[in-house]
């Protein structure tokens, strides 16, 4: 016997719930949901179907309430229109940019059950602009699940506020190099949501080696153009950061799918962990103070002169706190003489030594490689 598509079952159930202000029992719902009414198998199977439908609709964000009856049995269900439907949205003012702003008229409410109870939410134009930009920004990050959620949210809001979709397209483009495989990001997002441990092969660029990792995912961060997984590395027993594009053979723990494998510590701050830092600030090495003189203030050095800290009385001098000396020395070398290390002397000598080594390379390779 053909069965009704689940979509029909769900819409029947939603309509049966939304039709009423008060909570109803399963038998009442059964009469209005075609698939339930026509069910001829065992009642336990029918109840399991109903339970599954409720769970899946709740997972989609539908706020179905379970309400106790007079005997305190949790056997009645309610879906209030004002909790299910989007409030009416409108701009705070008609023609907001025109002089003499006039308050917007009340929205036209459609005929049907529940719409009279919906609130009205008024947005200022700059708030709408921020929301449109936020949606576009999330869409540019290369995570398909996030992009989809943001786009759906904007589409819902645009039902009343079409300007959200009419914002000048392309006024901002965020380009990400080599975005990780969307399926990998989606799997990590799922593991994060369900608090499941993940295993993967990770290629460490520092060591140029690949090793198996077992990690409790605590967060995903998009910083400086790349996605990073932040979590507790079981083997190191420490919080580590992994660039998602370097992760391979990802597997999410499939045991006890519905129970979390771990809890994220209450004090964990993803932003603090993943926050953008300069390459020379990374790592656990001791921090050293370095003084750099910028002898030229051109378009290249000007942004660099905004980094570090000023040195009182000397506009050309900046103070930096450095953990990775070699990385910093290379950065300075890249200014091609427009920036020089004044202290410590050892680091200044390191830059000179780097220049000599590089020059030596040219002396060796000159005959065969040019051209």
């Amino acid at each position, binding site marked *: 016997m053909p069965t009704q598509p689940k979509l029909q079952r769900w819409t029947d159930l939603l309509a*049966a719930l939304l039709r009423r202000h008060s909570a109803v029992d399963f038998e009442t719902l059964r009469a209005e949901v075609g698939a339930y*009414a026509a069910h001829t198998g065992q009642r336990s199977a029918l109840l399991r179907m109903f339970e599954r439908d409720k769970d899946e609709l709740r997972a989609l964000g539908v706020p179905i309430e379970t309400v106790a009856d007079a005997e305190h049995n949790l056997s009645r269900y309610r879906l209030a229109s004002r*909790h299910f439907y989007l409030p009416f949205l409108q701009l705070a003012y008609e023609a907001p940019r025109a002089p003499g702003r006039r308050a917007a008229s009340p929205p036209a409410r459609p005929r049907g059950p529940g719409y009279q109870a919906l609130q009205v939410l008024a947005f200022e134009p700059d708030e709408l602009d921020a929301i449109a930009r936020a949606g576009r920004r999330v869409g540019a990050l290369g995570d398909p699940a996030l992009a989809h959620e943001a786009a759906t949210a904007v589409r819902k809001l645009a*039902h009343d506020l079409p300007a959200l979709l009419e914002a000048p397209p392309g006024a901002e483009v*965020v380009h990400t190099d080599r975005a990780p495989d969307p399926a990998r990001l989606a799997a990590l997002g799922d593991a994060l949501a369900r608090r499941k441990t993940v295993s993967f092969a990770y290629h460490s660029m520092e060591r140029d080696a690949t090793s198996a990792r077992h990690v409790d995912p605590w967060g995903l961060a998009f910083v400086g153009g790349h996605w990073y997984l932040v979590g507790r590395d079981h083997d190191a027993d420490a919080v580590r950061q992994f660039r998602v*594009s370097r992760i391979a053979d990802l597997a999410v723990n499939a045991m006890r799918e519905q129970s979390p494998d771990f809890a994220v510590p209450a004090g964990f701050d993803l932003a603090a962990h993943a926050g953008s830092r300069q390459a020379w600030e990374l790592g656990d090495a001791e921090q050293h103070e370095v003084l750099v003189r910028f002898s030229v203030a051109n378009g290249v050095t000007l942004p660099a002169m905004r980094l570090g800290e000023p040195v009182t009385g000397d506009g050309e001098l900046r103070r930096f706190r450095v953990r990775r000396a070699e990385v910093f020395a290379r950065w300075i070398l890249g*200014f091609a003489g427009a920036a020089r290390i004044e202290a410590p002397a050892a680091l200044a000598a390191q830059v*000179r030594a780097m220049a000599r080594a590089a020059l030596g390379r040219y002396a060796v390779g000159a005959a065969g490689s040019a051209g």
Partner: protein
Amino acid sequence: MPAHPAESAAAQLKRLLLALPALADDRAHPMDAVARRVGCDVATLRQDLTTLVTRVTDDPGGFTEGVQLLLTSDRVQLATPSGHFRRPMALTRLELHALELGLGALQHEAPPEERPVMRRAQERLRRALARLPHEPVASARADRYVALGRESDVERQVRRDLQRCITARCVAAITYRSARADADEVRRVQPMGVVWSRGAWYLVAWCERSEALRVFRLDRITAIAPAEERFAPREDLPLESVLRDGRVLVGGGDQVMRIRYSAAIARWISEREPVTPGPGGSVEAEYPLLDLEWGVRHALRYGADAEVLAPAELRTAVMERLAALAG
């Protein structure tokens, strides 16, 4: 990979909860316009609506009792006597969190006086969340974080001012310091948009002096002065046109810089550039060379791990600079 049945039904339901409100007036609508509002193609929309109303048995009709769906080749009309689903569903938590993430990123980048706008937008969005009566609105998603990079206060201010000019399509006078200059110059430009790539923001603009499309690194702009004049949008010059292999580049001739990177750093280079293998585990990459000085700085940044192979002129320039720095 075929979608899981529940996932497929979920996707259908989400689309329909956007499509049905668009058809709530019981009038005929162009199919492609509704599909655009839903974010799917016409065939998918047609399939979803057909699945919704086609009953395969004589079971009670449920929601679709009395529903009339009229589908032509390009128009759709739906009459729903029960009056359900004439509003979109409120935001789900995942949808709210996705927008909050974007607002958080914008707030992080915005100057202090602009942050209240993002906070207010976030507060209003939270009131549009589908939730149970006593269920708290969760605080912003703690397991996602987005920040493009660090910006100084000057850069934030510049980007904010530019954004206003871009939105209003007004000509701007930018105070800019090029890589070679040690003094600012002022240029009148028609700002079209901003592009973020490889750790930096760039202004893409029509330069009135050179009468051509130009890009300006935002961290080299120190001030923006909006002018009275407005300009027409240039549909023929999409912002993406300034991206070449992920780099922001405009104009330039045919000169190519070829660099060999040592085996020690080859894996990092290979991760972000198209490369060809060189001797002894090294790799070689080519770049359009618009500015010799840029090439010098690029090569020097890698010390002894990079060697300019071409052009000869650049190779000589790098050697001279290294000799001076080695002293």
